[in-house]
């Protein structure tokens, strides 16, 4: 704060107004993601304890000591819980920091939140100028005063500089291409002189190739560009008021980075600019997923976040004493002499540790009771947890009020939500998430859709559920309580990426292996080619071949299915079902199906033993009569009917020449059986009229038939006319 005042004094008259301005911050107390489910169904993420202190306290304590005077806490999900907490905490009466809450239940994304604040703004004009935008799960100790000053100075020179983004160097893992916080590797381009952000990419980077696509204009318009792949986005932004109005103007902006930053970078019309600020010795990180929960906890224990560490009372927390080897222990912990509490461990107030326990690398909250011979490694045990004798807990998160009965085992990556009971000797499988609440049936596919059903119903449902639970028994052993959540499709492979548990060795080996294979493949394709042209050509070829091959397979499958249907006498409806499923799995059009089925039918007719052409015709027409329902299902439209005729033509020319002479007759049959309609035949004829002589063979064959058709239709028209008259 002192620095800010000094800064204000240095800048003379015209900025005096600005320097008198209160330093304000908007704190989003909702992450708008579902990454912390099921825990966040019952408690908002910002109130989850991080090394025994609610996350929001880290953020508020940092903002306060960085000289921020007023914070607007935007509450959405579980807003009452957050407001109640802030009311009772010491922030309410803090001399230097005014904490105000803004409540909105309709917002489902950061974009909505900022739009809501903008709307409020028109009435109350709370935000007076530049503000700091952070989320309530940020842990940092960076000074802000200078940065805000820098932002204001830049803004004064360049109206368009609306945002300054904080980044920090952090090397991503070479194997998983993940940052240490479990987020995807970030790729940014910055102007080395002005520090302007030119490109921001977090998801579309091709890790296997190690390449990224940049817009050509980027290089044209900037004399020099600095590319980073070892930066971490701290999600701390200094924003000018224009940012709010930008969100208002672009009502489809939801995500701060994916939409807003990219939108601003792409948009040339407004010409707004975003700048970056790299922090050196300070710490800043955001708890985005379970992996970063683990990482940030360890950073706090290792004191990177000093002075926001467990042995310092920084925001209403009760400090615990730091001993050797990074063991933080509250003064009233009851610990058995035979218990072995190892390095980097935090034990909270009133916790009892029994005989022969082994605790390592873990955080244990207040009021926990831990029985004898328990092993706890790399885990986060919150408050009032009871762990009975002989349990083994590795790399798990155990929420408030959980009871783990004797002999139970938690495998790595397990998350037990509030008040779950794990039954005797039950083994909770790795990466499972357990809650008293049932998993919401309909997964919101859109990640932006956050804890959809928030504060309102949770408590009611909880009481209802526990009753149900008793009657039902439990998924966690006979004396347990809780539902194991299904891991949703697709995310299964990704589960290990964001879990609290370290990535298992075999997974790492797998990725390395895959990468090596890829490299080998690359090598093969690259080595023999002399120039790049050829490799390109290769890739194009394969691309083209792929769908063709697919169709070939599909045709064979359809044929097989059809033959089986004929042999086993399967009903038409069931045949339709089977072929439909094939169609879906091969991603084919119904026209393709029609072609394939007709092909199979004719093939069957040809393959059926016959002595003369007339016999063949008989076979074919009987098959068509019998299976017209199946074919009819796919030839509802003229295009599909034409496809059938074309297919027929193709067959006659290539695979089944015997059918050639019978073309007109069979076409007639198809017409009679309503498989092919008049329109389709006419259009086919029209199309073919302009073709080569060779292609016209079948058209000529059918000439009389078509003639007849035309006359019939004219007659019909005449009839119609007469009727109309």
């Amino acid at each position, binding site marked *: 704060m002192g620095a800010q005042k000094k800064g204000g004094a240095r800048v003379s008259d015209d900025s005096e107004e600005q320097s008198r301005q209160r330093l304000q911050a908007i704190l989003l107390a909702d992450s708008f993601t579902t990454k912390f489910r099921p825990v966040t169904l019952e408690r908002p993420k910002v109130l989850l304890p991080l090394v025994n202190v609610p996350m929001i306290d880290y953020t508020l*304590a940092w903002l306060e000591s960085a000289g921020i005077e007023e914070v607007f806490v935007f509450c959405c999900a579980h807003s009452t819980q957050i407001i109640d907490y802030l009311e009772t905490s010491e922030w309410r009466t*803090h001399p230097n920091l005014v904490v105000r809450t803004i409540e909105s239940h309709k917002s489902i994304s950061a974009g909505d939140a900022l739009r809501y604040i903008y709307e409020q703004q028109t009435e109350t004009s709370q935000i007076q100028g530049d503000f700091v935008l952070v989320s309530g799960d940020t842990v940092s100790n960076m000074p802000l005063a200078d940065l805000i000053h820098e932002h204001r100075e830049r803004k004064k020179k360049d109206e368009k500089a609306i945002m300054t983004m904080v980044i920090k160097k952090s090397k991503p893992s070479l194997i*998983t291409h993940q940052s240490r916080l479990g987020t995807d590797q970030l790729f940014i381009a910055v102007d080395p002189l002005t520090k302007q952000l030119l490109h921001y990419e977090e998801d579309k980077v091709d890790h296997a190739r190690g390449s990224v696509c940049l817009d050509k204009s980027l290089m044209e318009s900037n004399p020099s560009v600095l590319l980073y792949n070892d930066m971490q986005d701290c999600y701390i932004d200094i924003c000018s008021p224009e940012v709010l109005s930008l969100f208002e103007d672009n009502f489809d902006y939801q995500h701060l980075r994916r939409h807003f930053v990219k939108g601003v970078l792409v948009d040339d019309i407004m010409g707004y600019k975003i700048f970056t600020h790299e922090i050196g010795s300070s*710490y800043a990180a955001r708890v985005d997923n379970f992996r970063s929960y683990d*990482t940030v906890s360890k950073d706090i224990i290792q*004191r990177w976040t000093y002075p926001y560490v467990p042995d310092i*009372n920084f925001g209403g927390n009760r400090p615990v004493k730091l001993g050797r080897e990074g063991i933080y222990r509250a003064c009233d912990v009851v610990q058995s002499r035979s218990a072995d509490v190892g390095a980097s461990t935090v034990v909270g107030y009133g916790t009892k540790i029994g005989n022969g326990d082994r605790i390592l*690398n873990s955080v244990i909250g207040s009021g926990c009771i831990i029985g004898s011979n328990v092993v706890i490694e790399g885990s986060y045990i919150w408050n009032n947890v009871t762990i009975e004798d002989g349990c083994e807990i590795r790399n798990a998160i155990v929420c408030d009020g959980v009871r783990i009965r004797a002999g139970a085992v938690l495998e790595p990556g397990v998350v037990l939500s509030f008040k779950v009971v794990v039954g005797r000797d039950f083994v909770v499988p790795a990466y499972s998430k357990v809650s008293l609440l049932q998993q919401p049936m309909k997964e919101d596919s859109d990640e932006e859709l956050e804890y959809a059903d928030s504060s309102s119903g949770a408590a009611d449902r909880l009481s209802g559920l526990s009753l149900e639970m008793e009657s039902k028994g439990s998924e966690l052993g006979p004396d347990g309580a809780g539902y194991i959540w299904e891991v949703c499709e697709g995310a299964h492979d990704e589960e290990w990426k964001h879990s609290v548990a*370290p990535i298992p060795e075999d997974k790492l080996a797998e990725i390395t292996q895959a990468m090596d294979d890829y490299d080998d493949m690359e090598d093969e394709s690259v080595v023999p080619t002399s120039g790049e042209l050829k490799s390109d050509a290769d890739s194009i070829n394969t691309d083209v071949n792929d769908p063709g091959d697919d169709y070939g397979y599909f045709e064979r499958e359809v044929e097989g299915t059809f033959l089986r249907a004929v042999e086993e006498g399967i009903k038409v409806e069931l045949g339709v079902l089977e072929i439909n499923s094939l169609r879906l799995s091969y991603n084919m059009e119904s026209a393709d199906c029609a072609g394939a089925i007709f092909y199979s039918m004719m093939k069957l007719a040809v393959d059926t033993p016959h002595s003369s052409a007339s016999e063949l015709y008989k076979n074919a027409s009987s098959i068509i009569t019998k299976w017209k329902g199946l074919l009819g299902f796919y030839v509802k439209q003229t295009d599909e009917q034409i496809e059938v005729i074309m297919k027929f033509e193709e067959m006659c020319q290539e695979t089944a020449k015997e059918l050639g002479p019978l073309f007109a007759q069979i076409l007639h049959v198809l017409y009679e059986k309503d498989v092919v309609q008049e329109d389709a035949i006419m259009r086919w004829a029209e199309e073919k009229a302009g073709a080569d002589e060779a292609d016209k063979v079948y058209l000529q064959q059918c000439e009389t038939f078509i003639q007849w058709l035309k006359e019939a239709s004219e007659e019909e028209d005449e009839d119609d006319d007469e009727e109309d008259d």
Partner: protein
Amino acid sequence: MPDVQSMVLEFVNKLRKRKIEGSQATARCTVELLRSVISHHRVPHANQASALIDAVKAVGAQLVAANPVELAVGNVVRRVLHIIREEDLSLATAAVAGLDLLDASDDDEDVNGKGIGYPGMSAAVVAAAARSTLRPPSLQTLLEGTPESATVPYTSSSGADSESKTADKSSITRKLKHDVIEGVNQLIHEIAGCHEQIAEQAIEHIHQNEVILTLGSSRTVLEFLCAAKEKKRSFRVFVAEGAPRYQGHLLAKELVARGLQTTVITDSAVFAMISRVNMVIIGAHAVMANGGVIGPVGVNMAALAAKKHAVPFVVLAGSHKLCPLYPHNPEVLLNELRSPSELLDFGEFSDCLDFGTGSGSPLLQVVNPTFDYVPPSLVSLFITDTGGHNPSYMYRLIADYYSADDLVM
């Protein structure tokens, strides 16, 4: 009262966030805060001293809890408590000794209002007199065999006083607050002036053409060296840089600005350079009751090097740094571990701190302690604002400043 409350909160907040650095600044802020606590405290008529003591203790406990590493806070709180006890005692004796005098002064005060002390005799003088006559644990009295009348009889006697002389009590209490504030002002003055007091002695310790080694940065050391320079002593200073915060660099800058011949060396070069050094002078963070010193990290190494080469190891400490506790005391938090970022660049080492791969347990640990403890056997001399003292005498010196009742807060 509410403004005092918010002042306390603000100071507590600053202490918690480690925003105030240096024991002198902390001590000064603490004593100023306590003065306003005392002056705003509404005192009851009976048992005023204990009411004041309770008020100060309550605030003191908050301050100490806010930053237990900064021992100066506790020291100053104890000093203030000691002042209250002394003033109470001296008033009690004065009341017994000369009722007439008190009555006269009382009338005087009623006329002129508060703020005017004794017409004839200042409170300080009375207090000093009372101290000299009444203080029980002085070396002389002990030798003379006077029965030890520590604090227990004193409280009982004051209690008896309050019962018997209720009429006098009101005047005594009004006086008490005034006297206490006077005493606290003196303490503020003392803390503010400790540098000069210590620096005055510089000429006796630093001789011509000597080489002085110091480590880290201390204002007291700076003033001490400059005082010797001003007295036309010519000498050279070696400054060990004091990793990882490198405050030695700042000290070197200041020394050069004042025209002193300065050499900067790394901490690890201390042992190599010590043979050329005539005296090691360092500033302390705190001096414990046993004569042990808490100083910037690396000091113990310098002390050992000095011992090995029989170089005098001199510690400068203002009286507010004298801590009545022993280092083995469970309440004493001797050290503070600061952020590893002072040692390592986070970005450079971030791949070593990736918990997602491997066993998940941090393989890289960084320990960054702020302080070092030097045992009394390595210290040659303490220079405080009252003069030079032997380490073994420190407990005696401390007994002059603190009363035994306040050691545990």
